[in-house]
């Protein structure tokens, strides 16, 4: 759909990951990889196509928060009609965010190579071009900073590592006031629901796209000052943790 073929091949590298939506995702992949007659697309004579426009032209463009809210609201309403419960709804919202994460990853890397002073390049070993993150911490900083700024025009509010020795693979990213939930009041009978599961899906897409198999979920952690404070719990898979140990031993940053 909105994805050029290279995105589909990226999905293919992740389709084997043991995660909830893997089936759906695999279907998408197969669908778009099915050989099509290459008759090609028609293009306008004035060549108003995506190839003729600079990828950064919309970088600083603004739209209304309202438009996002209405679209996101419809996404939630639509998802609600096809699910059985809160968990199912969150799963579906997560799946909607996932492909977005995959795509944003490319955009993030593209933008960070084309501007020398970006925050991303400072967090990687060489100044330019920045490599994809190899270590968990670099990846999480990429999410907490550049990804959040691209989506929400500010960094996330906190990044923490689980203090429990039983769960060294768990990390928490906190947003005190998630933009996606600005106008949403969840009914009392659904109080466990957090629609930022959509954002959790985006994070999951970014992690997977970078080769860090992970599950990400959104949790309500309200405080008096921040009633819609949300914690994104990132749980990396065993393979990631093992690789992390090897990289640690070899001194890879």
């Amino acid at each position, binding site marked *: 759909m909105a994805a050029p073929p290279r995105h589909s091949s990226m999905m293919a590298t992740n389709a084997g990951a043991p995660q909830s939506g893997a089936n759906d995702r695999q279907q998408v992949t197969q669908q778009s990889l099915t050989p099509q007659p290459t008759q090609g697309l028609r293009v306008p004579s004035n060549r108003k196509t995506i190839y003729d426009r600079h990828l950064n032209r919309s970088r600083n463009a603004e739209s209304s928060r*309202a438009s996002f*809210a*209405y679209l*996101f*609201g*419809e996404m*939630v*309403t639509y998802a*609600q009609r096809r699910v059985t419960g809160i968990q199912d709804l969150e799963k579906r919202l997560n799946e909607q965010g996932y492909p977005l994460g995959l795509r944003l990853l490319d955009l993030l890397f593209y933008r960070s190579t084309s501007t020398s002073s970006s925050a991303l390049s400072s967090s990687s070993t060489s100044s330019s071009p920045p490599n994809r993150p190899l270590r968990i911490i670099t990846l999480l900083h990429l999410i907490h900073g550049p990804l959040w700024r691209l989506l929400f025009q500010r960094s996330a509010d906190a990044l923490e590592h689980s203090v429990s020795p039983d769960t060294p693979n768990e990390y928490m990213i906190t947003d005190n006031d998630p933009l996606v939930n*600005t*106008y*949403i*009041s*969840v*009914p*009392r009978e*659904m109080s466990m629901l957090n629609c930022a599961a959509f954002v959790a899906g985006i994070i999951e897409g970014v992690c997977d796209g970078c080769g860090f198999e992970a599950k990400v979920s959104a949790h309500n952690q309200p405080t008096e000052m921040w*009633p*819609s404070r949300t914690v994104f719990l990132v749980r990396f898979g065993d393979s990631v943790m093992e690789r992390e140990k090897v990289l640690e031993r070899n001194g890879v940053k």
Partner: protein
Amino acid sequence: MLHTQAVFSLIIINKAGGLIYQREFQAGLRKLSTNDYLVLAGTFHGVHAITRSITPKIPLAPTTNSPAASPGTSTPAASSYSYPNPGASVSGLDYLESDKFRLTCFQTLTGTKFLLFTDPMTGNVETIINKIYDLYADYVMKNPFYQLEMPVRCEAFDRHLGAWLRGRT
């Protein structure tokens, strides 16, 4: 100061005359029963409609056929009268006042009514109502869990409305 700025309570009535929101902002107000609020909403809705329909028209020089006239609606007799300001909609009852309180009604172009009970001395009631409409458009209408025309149960609306009214005094 606080007294003259007092906003006592707010009622929102849907297009059909049903009460969809009611909240008091001052402690110690005499409360009505839920049923009385429903009656108040329905009665006001009806009276409002009647006052709308009795709005007098003024004679008008015959106009050339207006664009976009829907078929079969304008008779020659009716078209020679018009409301004083054809651009503005006919509003119906705008406020009721006693010596202790004032009820101001704001009806949106979509037919929803906001009824605000204030102290008769409270100034800038229009500004207050516009802000309430703004908050309603944000925290009620943009909430996917809110079903149109149904009672408003939106925690974020309550919270922002309360905070704004408190900060105003």
